[in-house]
């Protein structure tokens, strides 16, 4: 046996390594587990290096490029070199500062505006794979990040956390293969499932051919996936055509159009509303506001009828009020029917709160 192993040593080692890794793969797939220890070691080993490089790049990159630029200017024009260099340096510095401030302001604005509780994070690296669509961010489980949390930017959704390590988290981008999110169209409220395929555009599946979707229309998160809160922008429709069995819709994800540096991780999601599409405005054609419904407006309804869920219930309530105002009891006296053309009396409004009586003047002794 030993001789046999020695004779086929190379092949034995190869088989051992391949079979070992196959077993590891099989265990992960079958048990739904992950070789977490291995990942934690690797991420913990790489994250500090990535952070250090990022820090060095941020601190010295700008200075270095400006220095090189300054040297070139000196060569071209010795007399103006210092002034031009200083001005360019200051200009670039201010521009960068402005861009950073704008980005930070947009993020802060969005953070204040969104009802969800979010945590800002910085992208520190991509995943180790060809055409990788997974990134690492500098927030981990110690910051409260958990697997499955939604990641977004003010422009739209970015992806979701697929692994949370102590010092960093791994975020699967919306364009990544295996990504899925429930979406709803803004104009026609058509629901579908956004899927990542590994390319820059994402298909939206499960839309019937009969459903109406237009090119350029916005899609928002529907909240059905229980990951992304409802009402976050997802992207615009790039192409739409009828397919076999279902409509073929591709989306251009708005959150990934530019590079992503800073992102927001939704720690506690609160569902919002999908905004109505903007109305077409024109100076030449006057468009009236939509006509009022015959149905009583919400504010005119009594608290009881406000709870009426259907049109039939509201109609019944209206007839009851007409009957009450004319002393007619439906079903009791088969006499003359009430006059339904008379105006419907307004529902009794709750009594206005009495103004608070001023406190009695203090009597001075």
């Amino acid at each position, binding site marked *: 046996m030993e001789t046999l192993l020695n004779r086929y040593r190379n092949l034995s080692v190869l088989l051992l390594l391949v079979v070992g*890794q196959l077993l590891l793969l099989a265990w992960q797939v079958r048990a739904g587990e992950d070789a977490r220890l291995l*990942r934690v070691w690797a991420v913990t080993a790489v994250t500090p290096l990535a952070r250090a490089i990022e820090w060095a790049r941020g601190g010295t990159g700008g200075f270095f490029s400006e220095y090189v630029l300054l040297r070139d200017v000196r060569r071209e024009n010795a007399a103006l070199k210092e002034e031009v260099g200083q001005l360019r340096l200051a200009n670039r510095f201010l521009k960068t500062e402005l861009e950073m401030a704008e980005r930070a302001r947009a993020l802060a604005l969005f953070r204040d505006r969104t009802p969800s509780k979010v945590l800002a994070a910085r992208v520190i690296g*991509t995943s*180790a794979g*060809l055409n990788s669509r997974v990134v690492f961010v500098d927030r981990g489980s110690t910051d409260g990040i958990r697997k499955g949390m939604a990641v977004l930017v003010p422009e739209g959704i970015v992806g979701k956390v697929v692994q949370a390590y102590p010092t960093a988290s791994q975020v699967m981008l919306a364009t990544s293969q295996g990504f899925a999110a429930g979406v709803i169209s803004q104009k026609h409220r058509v629901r579908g499932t956004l899927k990542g395929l590994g*390319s820059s555009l994402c298909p939206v599946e499960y839309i019937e051919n009969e459903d109406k979707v237009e090119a350029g229309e916005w899609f928002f998160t529907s909240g059905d996936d229980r990951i992304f809160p409802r009402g976050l922008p997802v992207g615009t429709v790039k192409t739409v055509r009828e397919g076999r069995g279902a409509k073929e819709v591709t989306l251009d994800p708005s959150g990934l159009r530019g590079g992503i540096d800073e992102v927001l991780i939704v720690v506690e999601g609160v569902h919002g509303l999908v905004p109505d599409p903007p109305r077409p405005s024109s100076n030449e054609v006057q468009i009236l506001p939509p006509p009022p419904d015959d149905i009583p407006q919400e504010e005119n309804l009594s608290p009881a009828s406000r709870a009426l869920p259907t049109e039939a219930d509201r109609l019944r309530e209206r007839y009851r009020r007409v009957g009450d105002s004319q002393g007619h009891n439906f079903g009791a006296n088969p006499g003359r029917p009430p006059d339904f053309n008379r105006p419907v009396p307004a529902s009794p409004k709750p009594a206005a709160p009495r103004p608070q009586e001023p406190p009695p003047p203090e009597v001075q002794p």
Partner: protein
Amino acid sequence: MTGYDDRLLLRTPSKTRIARYPAAVWIIVPLVAILFQVYVPRFVVALSYLELPLLATIYFSLMSRRPVTGSVSGAVIGLLQDSLSHQPVGLFGISKTLVGYFSASVSQRFDVENNLLRFLLSFFLFLFHQILFWVLSRSLLGAALDLQIPQTVIYSFLNAAVAIPFFQILDRLRSDTR
């Protein structure tokens, strides 16, 4: 056998030199290659086609000329790469183990210090790695991964082109030989 064949095929034992490297090189080079792949494509998207960990695997396997060393180094680099990706650990590991094994096996027969041979080997081994990865992903994980042949061939060519200077830089780290 022609003179050109003589340049490519190893016929004398004197040419079967086993390159040796300081221990630090075995650790630092794969780490730097993986860090490069994790970090650089963020800023230079055009460089995301580079598979430096695979090139490092090919180089160390070719130069060690030992299938066992090639397989083990491929497995270690692949597993490290796997652990930084979002897929189950083992896919890159198996692919690079086989690449390491085949590279080292080839190096026992050919003069792997020849740049043309290095280019061809890198080209075909990259192609083999990509196809193997695709096959494993589909068969073992059932992933609907898309294999774009023209793009993969172009990437193979580009990686092979980068492999030549990359291998020459690594050659300088040798503490050599026999």
